[in-house]
């Protein structure tokens, strides 16, 4: 097991380096003036000042030297200056990340619990009406793009019924959150409100987060459900399941004790990567619901041609995804001895 983990750990820096190389090459598509804006917070007034910036930061040096410099800055946590955020890119990511994490948690829990429950049900009732219904549900869910579903939700539950508003908090709640007596601890509104013992704020935050969370959940249930279903079908056909049945166990015991735990192995992979995907900023749902997380900020930066911020977010997301892959691989090794021995 240790050697397995070490093997995985050794591959990671190589992948990270590759990621940085690709991001750097995308950076090279910008002209030197735009690249100069990576480092400065206000545009230089004269052409000479611009030349000075280009020279100071070595943007006229050979490419490999620039890469080394850039990598050095990266190691110091310097991802450049965000024009749209009016702050360094890294601190902007830090500011917006809690909202994204909060949304990820609020959508991840229903996705996994309901997805697993429905997937197991569908497999156990293979080819019976329940299976067909979930099948249609997942095919339709898979075909509805996030932005269409989100807009429909807003149309029904906000514009028409006025139940769930977009954004992260109502105006009055925002005033409370930014007032002196209120402690911001995690940056996640629902959790902070509970820690501050403000149930009214908590309720307001829940009303705001439910719709984007449900939008993400609905579109993704389809995926989880199908993975669980097919994995469960495989397990139900396995010999050890037949043995369990042959020795006279009740069907519920066969499913709960023998089949389901083994069918969960692929769910770990999908679930892990999926959570990482959610952390990467549910770009579209955050934009549709005006939920100010990393994804919303990245789109905002993209439409304002703030390439530096977008590149920063992608680098951050990529690194996160690689890390998640590693964690999933290791977890997988623990769960399934066949993998660690291979």
């Amino acid at each position, binding site marked *: 097991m240790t050697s397995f983990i070490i093997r995985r750990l050794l591959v990671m820096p*190589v*992948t990270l380096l*590759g*990621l940085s*190389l*690709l*991001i750097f090459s*995308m*950076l090279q*598509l*910008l002209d030197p003036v*735009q690249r100069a804006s990576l480092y400065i917070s206000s545009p230089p007034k004269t052409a000479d000042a611009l030349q000075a910036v280009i020279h100071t930061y070595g943007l006229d040096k050979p490419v490999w030297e620039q890469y080394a410099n850039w990598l050095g800055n990266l190691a110091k946590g310097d991802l450049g200056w965000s024009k749209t955020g009016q702050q360094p890119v890294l601190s902007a990511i830090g500011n917006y990340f809690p909202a994204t994490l909060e949304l990820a948690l609020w959508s991840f829990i229903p996705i996994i619990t309901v997805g697993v429950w429905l997937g197991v049900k569908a497999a156990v009732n293979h080819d019976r009406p329940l299976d067909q219904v979930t099948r249609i549900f997942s*095919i*339709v869910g*898979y*075909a*509805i*793009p*996030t*932005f*269409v579903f989100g*807009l*429909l939700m*807003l*149309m029904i539950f*906000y*514009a*028409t019924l006025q139940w769930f508003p*977009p954004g992260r908090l109502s105006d009055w709640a925002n005033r409370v959150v930014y007032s002196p007596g209120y402690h911001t601890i995690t940056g996640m509104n629902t959790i902070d409100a509970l820690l501050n013992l403000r149930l009214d704020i908590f309720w307001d935050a829940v009303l705001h987060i439910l719709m984007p969370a449900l939008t993400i959940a609905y579109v993704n249930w389809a995926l989880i459900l199908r993975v669980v279903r097919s994995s469960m079908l*495989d397990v139900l*056909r396995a010999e050890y399941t037949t043995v369990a049945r042959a020795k006279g166990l009740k069907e519920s015991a066969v499913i709960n004790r023998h089949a389901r735990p083994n069918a969960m192995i692929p769910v770990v992979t999908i679930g892990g990567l999926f959570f990482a*995907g959610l952390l*990467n*900023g549910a*770009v*579209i749902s955050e*934009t*549709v619901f005006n939920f100010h997380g990393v*994804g919303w900020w*990245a*789109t905002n930066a*993209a*439409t304002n*041609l703030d*390439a530096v911020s*977008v*590149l920063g*977010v*992608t680098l951050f*997301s*990529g690194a996160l*995804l*690689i890390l998640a*892959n590693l964690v999933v691989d290791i977890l997988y090794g623990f769960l399934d001895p066949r993998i660690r021995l291979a």
Partner: protein
Amino acid sequence: MATTTKALQPQPQLPTIALPKARRLPAWLRALLRNPLSVTGAIIVIAFILLALLAPVIAPPKYPEDPYQIPRAGFSAAPKPPSAAHILGTTEGQYDIFYGIVWGTRTAFKVGLIITGLTVLIGGTLGAVSAYVGGWVDEVIQRFVEIVLAFPYLMAAITLQVVLAPRLHDSFLAAMIALTAFSWPGYSRLIRGDVLSVKERDYVLAAKVIGAPAWRILMRHILPNSIYTLLVVASLDIGTYVLAFAALSFLGLGAQPGYADWGQLLSFARNWIPVLSTHWYIVVFPGFAIVLFVLGWNLMGDAFRDALDPKLRGNK
């Protein structure tokens, strides 16, 4: 007994019996036709193909030199509900929704086919070379594939679009290139596996023995025998690419305002969210077009995967 003796006798009509057999549809197509869901999917896709082909008849362009430009009925901002002149209403800026949906079908096919074609070309070439040459070439290409796969797909596409658009002065083209750049790795892995198995076949060895050059062996003997799965899988992914492009357009990073594109039509709705209850038609109609299109491809694809998957086939 009588039948056996009959069977042993020379049968002049045998070739005519064998002919329909040879003309029988391939197994996957028969499986598709048996499945009602996939037939529904195929009907939806064919309807969209007809809509795209007949676009000039169904919605005659106002500017024949640039038919993808949606005609405007005035310049007032607020959307107008369906009427006799604009049967699906007009969206922000008085762009006709019906015209946008009809010509948007052409955009969808254009985008889907171009992205699929390019990804197959890039993924196919790299995957085939990787498998055929092997050794360090294989190693380098596979590591590269892993790195590209390490990017979060949509975010990566957004990034490349943002840096490319000012260079190309064309955000539409930039969005297509960006999606292509991060879509090919899966295909290269798919074909790599197939080439690896085909390359050990006797006929490839025979071609080597007679001294055929490597490119010829690859192009004439290996690829025709291994590209099939890739083509099937890729053609069913058209719906996915159309969806991804629509998402970029929706975010304002693809088609420009006024271009007949579904995602672009929907992006206008972002400005009218609090009053969508009165302006429902600016979401519902373009949204329905996208959902139906993707649903059609997915229904077909779903049955296809079942038909191609031997594990599921054996248990039916």
